[in-house]
């Protein structure tokens, strides 16, 4: 992707998020939960961005195993790292919301436990990459582990449907409802957060590619 497009998308996403934060602050408080409910405008889009990132990582990992092209390995590590960043932010915002609404920071229900497990698995993926020296072996192990880690993602997504959880049911595909103008702000945040994730993934992907080229040149120089 061209530099102008990447940076332009990043600036546009940041601008939409900044404007939307201001707009959301002006919305009336939710009847039952009050102002703290507004965390949902950031919490859910962050999880959506994380979901997109780990899905890209899954596809890239599978493509690496099929083609052995290291560009897919770079794409997998870039999107997983961005995914872990959004997962961390999603867990943190959810926990803060829970403290005010439930009176507890954490509970071991199916959604929260599977979400934490998801974070641990992807953080484990990043640690695994540091543990293996040889590039081909590292990329292969990491790709297999990434596919394994993704098994938890549908469990996180559907846990609130499959089990009775403390976590609320989804607003959009459950029995909840959202006023039209709130939905608009929510979708803006969703799009902006995913766009931000795309920009971060592209930039991180480039870094990974440059690092691989540096390592290759260094090996060649040492060989002579």
């Amino acid at each position, binding site marked *: 992707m061209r530099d102008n497009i990447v940076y332009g998308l990043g600036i546009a996403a940041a601008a939409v998020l900044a404007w939307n*934060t201001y707009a959301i602050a002006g919305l009336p*408080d939710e009847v039952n*939960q*009050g*102002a*703290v409910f*507004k*965390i949902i405008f*950031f*919490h859910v889009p*962050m999880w959506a961005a994380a979901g997109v990132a780990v899905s890209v990582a899954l596809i890239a990992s599978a493509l690496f195993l099929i083609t052995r092209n290291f560009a897919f390995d770079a794409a997998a590590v870039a999107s997983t*790292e*961005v995914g872990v*960043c959004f997962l*961390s*932010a999603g867990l*943190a*915002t959810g926990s*803060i*919301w829970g*403290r*005010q609404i439930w009176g507890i920071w954490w509970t071991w229900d199916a959604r929260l436990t599977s979400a934490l497990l998801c974070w641990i698995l992807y953080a484990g993926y990043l640690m695994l990459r540091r543990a293996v020296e040889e590039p081909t072996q590292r990329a292969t192990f990491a790709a297999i582990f990434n596919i394994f880690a993704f098994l938890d993602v549908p469990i996180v997504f559907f846990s609130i449907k499959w089990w009775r959880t403390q976590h609320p049911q989804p607003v959009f595909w459950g029995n909840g409802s959202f006023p039209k103008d709130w939905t608009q702000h929510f979708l803006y945040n969703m799009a902006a957060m995913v766009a*931000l994730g795309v920009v*971060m993934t592209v*930039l*991180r992907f480039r*870094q990974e590619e*440059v*690092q691989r080229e*540096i390592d290759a*040149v*260094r090996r060649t*120089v040492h060989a*002579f």
Partner: protein
Amino acid sequence: MYLLLAQITQDDLQREALRLQHDYQFLTYGLIAAWVILAVYVMTMIGRQKKLKREIESLRVMVDEKQASGSTR
């Protein structure tokens, strides 16, 4: 309506004010946590970019040295 309003005590008002204050406090904590995590990751990426530039520079020096030692042989 007026009867209901008449039942509101000073304590009720204080409790409601405290709840509102806590709501905004936790909303602020949530937003700060989210942005701090994203900002830390962006800072990490900037740091990694600087490290890559340093590595390219050291590699350039290494290649120049190898070429110089190769041409003197």
